[in-house]
């Protein structure tokens, strides 16, 4: 990458308006060209990168006066709306009057060595630029799944609702390429922000200079931003934005999608175990799955490109979830189709010219094929559910990053799965009497689904939630305690109470044979749990201001 700045500065003929600030805030190009021999270091590198090096931000806390010009300059540079700020200011404060200290953090993207946004992206929209090390995001490739928003411990990537894609700081790559300062560097009246070169290997060994009060631990992703702090900062300064923890987005589409798919998976497995699958039962499960997958697609910022999400199955849990549930749907559809075909009356087969396929010798293997297809669907369902749970095991969201998440996902499958087949076993005989199903010659099979799993799973499901809540409340991690505190607010408390009332209601309903009620209660419990899971998570983030202005949440 060329860096013509130094040449331009030295030739002295360039337009004085070429934007460049000298580190000592001196006026650029003041000296006549012939006497330019040594230049005060500029705020961007003046030599080319060598092997093993990359660019990074250096932010000098001791110079920043908290004027917020960098934030405006960034938004103007990138044409972002007011509520999306790729560079954000945070306050950190400490001490007792009059020995009070308040400082400011000004942060864009940290262009990490181990960037989680890159690893999680299902469509490979992120790239760490091989030359500059800048973490670049492609809006064209992005499908707006927002998984990077969850993955980044600094909450750097932000979703642009109007566009349906995520965006983030690219260190003004386009300006640096032309030897111009990034907008924030250029706007800072105190020369507190600069771009410098870092040796990646050395930094990986010692990145202590990336740590600061108000910043999540740099080790999670190895942030490259170097922060110059005042003496004793770590002991004195604390963030000021912790008093107002805001609810996160509820992601209702994901609440429903995960719940429905888990319900289907659990129901299928129970029915397979009890050998009581029939075409109507499978068709209902297939319909629910179709609804769930459609919901999940429209959760994306750009549903039309959902297919791209398969791309990174080797790396991204989100891709794996999409793959798992995709195969699940295919296997379930195949199972359903097979079950219908097996059950078709001979006359209908003949009319449909299916006799050649459904030869008696093949029909002999039918139950075996059906079972095999059914279990393969169950396998993909479980695999998808596990992949789905692993999406949420991200260090940047501590309240999600607990063993309780996969346990909850599996238990939720079992919970609804232990009640829904009971309800359907009651409903299907009625459905079978529907006139339009008569030509198909459907008859209701006698079912032998036990009720004891419903009690057992409900108890385990509740236990998992109770332990999670206790662990959150007693956690040493601020964000986890904050989640517990959020759940304890007057706004969310009723939901938490309902969360535990519902499984009990499900058990009582089962006891009285009210299987539909039990199923509804189980659904309600899981939906509530999932809603609370989404809204109460407190993500890691850089310290923001007291009014939390500039935060995107």
């Amino acid at each position, binding site marked *: 990458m060329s860096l013509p700045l130094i040449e331009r500065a030295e030739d002295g003929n360039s337009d004085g*308006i070429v*934007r460049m600030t000298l580190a000592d805030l001196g006026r650029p190009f003041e000296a006549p060209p012939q006497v330019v021999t040594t230049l005060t270091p500029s705020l961007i590198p003046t030599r080319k990168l060598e092997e093993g090096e990359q660019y990074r931000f250096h932010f000098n806390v001791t110079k920043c006066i908290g*004027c*917020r*010009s960098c934030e405006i300059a960034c938004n103007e540079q990138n*044409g972002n709306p007011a509520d999306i700020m790729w560079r954000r200011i945070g306050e950190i404060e400490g001490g007792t009057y009059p020995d009070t200290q*308040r400082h400011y953090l000004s942060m864009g993207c940290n262009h990490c060595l181990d960037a989680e946004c890159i690893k999680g992206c299902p469509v490979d929209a992120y790239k760490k630029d091989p030359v500059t090390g800048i973490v670049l995001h492609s809006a064209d490739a992005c499908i707006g799944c927002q998984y990077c928003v969850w993955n980044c411990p600094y909450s750097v990537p932000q979703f642009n609702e109007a566009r349906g894609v995520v965006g983030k700081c690219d260190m003004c790559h386009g300006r640096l390429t032309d030897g111009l300062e990034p907008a924030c560097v250029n*706007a800072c009246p105190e020369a507190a922000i600069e771009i410098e070169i870092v040796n990646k290997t050395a930094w990986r060994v010692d990145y202590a200079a990336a740590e600061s009060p108000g910043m999540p631990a740099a080790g999670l992703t190895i942030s490259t931003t170097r922060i110059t702090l005042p003496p004793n900062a770590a002991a004195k300064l604390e963030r000021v934005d912790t008093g107002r923890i805001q609810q996160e987005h509820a992601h209702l589409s994901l609440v429903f999608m995960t719940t429905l798919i888990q319900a289907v998976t659990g129901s299928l497995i129970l029915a397979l175990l009890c050998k009581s699958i029939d075409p109507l039962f499978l068709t209902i499960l297939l319909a629910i799955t179709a609804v769930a997958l459609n919901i999940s697609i429209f959760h994306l910022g750009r549903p039309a490109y959902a297919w791209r999400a398969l791309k990174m199955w080797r790396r991204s849990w989100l891709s794996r979830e999409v793959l798992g549930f995709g195969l699940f749907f295919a296997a379930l559809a195949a199972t359903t189709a097979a079950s219908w075909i097996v059950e078709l009356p001979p006359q209908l087969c003949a009319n449909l010219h299916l006799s050649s396929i459904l030869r008696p010798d093949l029909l002999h293997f039918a139950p075996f094929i059906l079972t095999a297809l059914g279990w393969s669907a169950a396998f993909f369902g479980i695999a998808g559910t596990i992949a789905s749970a692993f999406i949420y095991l991200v260090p940047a969201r501590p309240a999600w990053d607990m063993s309780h998440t996969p346990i909850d996902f599996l238990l939720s499958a079992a919970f609804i799965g232990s009640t829904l087949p009971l309800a359907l076993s009651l409903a299907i005989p009625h459905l079978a009497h529907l006139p339009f199903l008569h030509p198909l010659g459907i008859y209701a099979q006698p079912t032998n689904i036990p009720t004891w799993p419903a009690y057992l799973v409900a108890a385990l499901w509740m236990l998992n939630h109770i332990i999670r809540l206790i662990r959150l409340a007693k956690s040493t991690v601020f964000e986890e305690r904050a989640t517990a505190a959020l759940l304890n607010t007057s706004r969310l408390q009723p939901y938490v109470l309902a969360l535990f009332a519902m499984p009990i209601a499900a058990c009582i309903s089962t006891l009285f044979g009210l299987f539909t009620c039990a199923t509804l209660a189980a659904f309600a419990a899981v939906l509530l749990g999932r809603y609370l899971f989404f809204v109460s998570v407190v993500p890691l983030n850089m310290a923001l201001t007291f*009014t939390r*202005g500039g935060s995107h949440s």
Partner: protein
Amino acid sequence: MILRNLRRKLGIDTRQSDYTFQKDPRFGHIASARVADKWVKTTCGYCSVGCGMLIGIKDGKAVAARGNPEHPVNLGKLCPKGLSEHHILDAPGRATQPLLRKDGKLVPVSWDEALDTMVEKFRGVQERWGKDALGVVGTGQLLTEECYTLGKLVQLGFGTRNSDGNTTLCMASAVSGYKLSFGSDGPPGSYKDMETADVILLIGANIADNHPILCQRLERNRARGKDCTTVIAVDPRVTKTAMLSDIHLPVKPRSDIALLNGIAHILIRDGLINLEYIARHTTGFTQFASFVATFTPEHVAELTGLNEEQIIRVAHLYGRAKAAFIGWTMGVNHSSQGAVTVTAINNLALITGNIGRAGAAPFSITGQCNAMGTRETGFTSSLPGYRKFDNPKDREDLARLWNIDVDRIPTARGLAYPDIIEGAVSGSIKALWFIATNPVVSFPNYSVLEQALRSVEFLVVQDGFFPTPTSDFAHLVLPAAIWGEKEGTYTNSERRVSKANILVSPPGKARPDFDIFLDLASRLGVKAELYPNWTSTHDAFLEWQRVSSGRMCDYSNFTWQQIEDEGGLQWGGESLYTDGIFPTADGKAILHSVPCLPFIEQPNAEYDLILNTGRTVEHWHTRTKTSQVEMLNHMVPNAWLEMNPVDATRLELRPHDRVNVVSRRSSVRNLELRITGIVAPGQVFMPFHFSETNSNRVTLGGFDPISREPNFKQCAVLVEKYVKTLT
């Protein structure tokens, strides 16, 4: 539209074109929407720092703002307000048509009807109640040329003496203090002094929030070498500026006079004064020396809450500095003792000879972009060109220049702003005209102001924005052009005259204030006499050059073009009083003995906290402009109250609690509480920008007897938890 929504729902990036980048020929890679066809030089219209800007214009719209790298004030840098200033021009809240109240409602009318009504109503009031029944409050937001034009229109056209500027809420104390000490207004120093001074004493000046672009001067000074300068901040609050200083003196509210006298005491006691300068250029030293003798370090420590060592150290630093600079803003001015506090500051500069040379000045950092222009040209607290009402020669001078009868020039100033409001309440003022100012938010003790606004027979509000909290009371609203829509000059704190240029046309039917003034003059029948053959603000500038010629604020040495080319020019050079000759009767500056009195409303058992008010970097004054800039509003959408943890514990309050601030006058309700060590125990602080939570509901109607500036900074309040009620 439906198709677009559908496409968007399906995942087509319908806004992709809004997020493309192009190469601006001048500024390089940037969002396409910010690439300009041309860049127009201008000067920022917010504060008095007076930054040079380049505004990018594309298709007749202002699309980008940049600091002008060539401009000596800011060298290419801007604060967040400046960087987003182009957004105010096409903001939705702009006033676009004249509105007249008919049957209780403001309805659109033509300019003819608006101005005819205004003239008729004002004349009616003046015929019935006397000429002085009309009160006019102007502003530091206008161009110098407009201030000058307005002064003549009001005093000679309408013939009322009761004309003042909103600058009385801002820097009137500095003006009065300078006049008392030096015989004339005029800040003697320059920003450049902050780069070379060995000691920079900032008193009640939170420049990091209010004049952030000045902070780079401190940084550049420090870059000269280690320990070559000491920045000392005197402020009861640990402001951003206090935190970037080397020494912070956390004085008790309003004890700055004691500190200044105490420093003078130590300087005299320890021989750190310039006896030669005192003898040659000042009067009153003997009396002054004996007056400050009582301000011993022990006594001052008691009054200020500082310790003796701190006071002595700062006095010695100031006394031993080769060049010492004192800067102040509203912490000093916003006081019923503001004017004399300014003289106490001037005393320090005078007895050490820290005036009239590089790095050494007692320097008032003003507020609005053109506060200085109103001071120089204004026909308010003095006659144009720093002339005095009570000086017959000055009056004759002007009469000759204007070719009018000298008897038409008043021999004393009319009512100051607070007295105009008082007059409206008591009935002596019957009509009011507010120009580009929003007293409902900016004037202290709102309940009295409200009574004034409701009492007058006719109230005209001329502003670039509608509605404003003040226009709610108006009988007539005149839509005015704002910064970027008119051409002329602003003068900044360091007396630098800079050019403000036209970027775009005013929205709708809005007109430049200058045009409105001239139109009114025509309707009054005084245009030919007052403004012969004037068509543009340049004509006003040319006359102002003649009027200011030979005066201290002499504009006759430079043309508009020169001002523009040089990035602004300072009248009087970098320092005033370089020869030590002051515009007093004997040419000597006067040392005043300033007693330190307690502030008016002391806390008691019931109202147990002292409320301090101030600003924040994201907003400007009453937010008529900055509330229109989404980015700024998003950063700080609401006011807050700062309270020390000690008081919060005592009152059982927690961070983010909603609280009421209650004074003897009224209350501010539903404020967000910020518990912080930034404020001292016993004190609370809130920003005054927000009309929704207007600090001036509780502030005090106390005014400086000399400058008439309000005492915004201290009043006694209690803080209670806000309880939602059904009303």
